[in-house]
């Protein structure tokens, strides 16, 4: 197991946002979490990335207990979050954004190799290296956000709502790229409101409702599950 999560409870003030979430992620797979607004998806991501602290529970990544680690130390362990809403640095160029992604990577040669790898994946933003990130289109900003996270060469990439605000064609393109990143050896943990897209590429998936896992299975199983179809696929 690359990631083991045991009985995670996270609060926002006094509101319980995660109620005992347990799951695991195998090395090399794509795991998706689907759920409606307020189901606890982003809370889960923030707890795993370390910007929120759980009140109870344990997170083990690659055999190391990271429950009490800072976000920075988690990144050094190889687990990184590409956050909801992209959160690129708008007043930086594409190049500077990627450099910030590589902040912990001090080895220049590795940095350069990761840089090339990102541009191979996203040739569209390669042409815009010197452009201010704030002036990129939504799809390009999402590519940049993913590229910035890949600059750390993570073992596991977590993505929070990568489809947010993108047209269906762009969603398809971004999810194709996520599959490509996975094929190149990065484990993917994805949370999405767009259940169709998320389940389509998932090896395994979970449905999250008011802070609890309610359904689990392979991506295909969930796509054919009556409850899922009714609740999330709107058919």
């Amino acid at each position, binding site marked *: 197991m690359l990631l083991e999560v045991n009985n995670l409870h996270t609060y926002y003030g006094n509101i319980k946002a995660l109620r005992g979430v347990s799951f695991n992620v195998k090395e090399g797979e794509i795991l998706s979490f689907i759920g409606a607004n307020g189901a606890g998806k982003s809370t889960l991501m923030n707890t795993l990335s370390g910007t929120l602290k759980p009140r109870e529970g344990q997170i083990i990544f690659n055999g190391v207990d990271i429950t009490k680690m800072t976000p920075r130390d988690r990144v050094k362990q190889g687990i*990184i979050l590409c*956050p909801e809403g992209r959160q690129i640095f708008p007043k930086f160029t594409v190049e500077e954004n990627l450099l910030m*992604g590589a902040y912990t990577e001090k080895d220049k040669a590795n940095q350069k190799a990761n840089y090339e790898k990102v541009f191979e994946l996203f040739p569209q933003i390669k042409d815009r290296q010197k452009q201010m990130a704030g002036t990129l289109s939504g799809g390009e900003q999402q590519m940049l956000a993913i590229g910035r996270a890949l600059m750390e060469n993570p073992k596991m990439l977590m993505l929070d709502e990568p489809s947010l605000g993108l047209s269906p064609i762009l969603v398809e393109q971004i999810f194709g790229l996520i599959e490509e990143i996975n094929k190149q050896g990065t484990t993917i943990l994805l949370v999405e409101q767009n259940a169709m897209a998320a389940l389509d590429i998932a090896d395994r998936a979970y449905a999250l409702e008011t802070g609890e896992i309610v359904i689990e299975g392979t991506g295909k199983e969930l796509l054919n599950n009556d409850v899922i179809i009714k609740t999330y696929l709107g058919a």
Partner: protein
Amino acid sequence: MSKFLQILVNGISLGSIYALTAIGYSLIYSILQLINMSNAAVFLTSAVIFYALYSSITAGSVALTFILTLIAAGALGYVIEFIAIRPIREKGDSNTYALISSIGVKTILEQLCQGTFGSEIKPFPTLLAGKYINLAGARTSAIQIIIIVVTLVILLGMTWFTQHNRVGRGLRALSQNLNACHLMGMPVNTLIGLSFTVGSMLAAVSGVAYCMYLSSISISVGSAIGNKAFAATVLGGIGELKGAVIGGYILAIAENFVSGYWSMSASNFISFAILILVLIIKPTGIFGKKEQKKV
């Protein structure tokens, strides 16, 4: 004409002093949305440290005293953040607590200075005392020229630092999206500490330069200049470094013209009159942009 020029030169040299201190306010505000009130006290403390060192161990060497003062001020800035700001930030408490904490630090530093230094005015070492240059009729003291040139060099240095240096660029990243910096594994706490170091070192240069300009030091220099530098920051647009610099120059030049052509006492309230006008007409200042709420 020569009176006009004289006032302008005086305004520019005083503006340099405001600008350097103002950058400290603006830099920290841009990252934490915190008005770090301790900045004015660092201005004073640095001048007192310079005075104390110069009148004891490093007597005679302005350069050595200056370097030691800079190091001390930089360390002081980091320690202030570490002790008084970081714990509040990490607990997730509101910035109001941090603001009050910074006022606490300001008070403590001022009291310490008063306790060790006393409340009388004392002579302060200066450079090239009594040397004047005639600039088209404007009698400009050598120290004024030195202050203007040093400030220019520092501003160029700051521009390079924030554009091309890894740490400097990191500080700019913090001011754009603190959360993303955490997620990218950047050493956020260290960088925030360093922003206090940079702000304090600039306040130190400013404090020492101001006392050299007056050739004297008293316990009141900190609040006098600190408050005006803060007004300059708001005038230029808090959070924008170039705003702090330009606000500093505008304020100082306006003050000098008011005292030159009208009255000395009016110049003391002109800064705050401008400040209030700015807050009414354009609260974001000259360069400030409307705050965009990040969700």
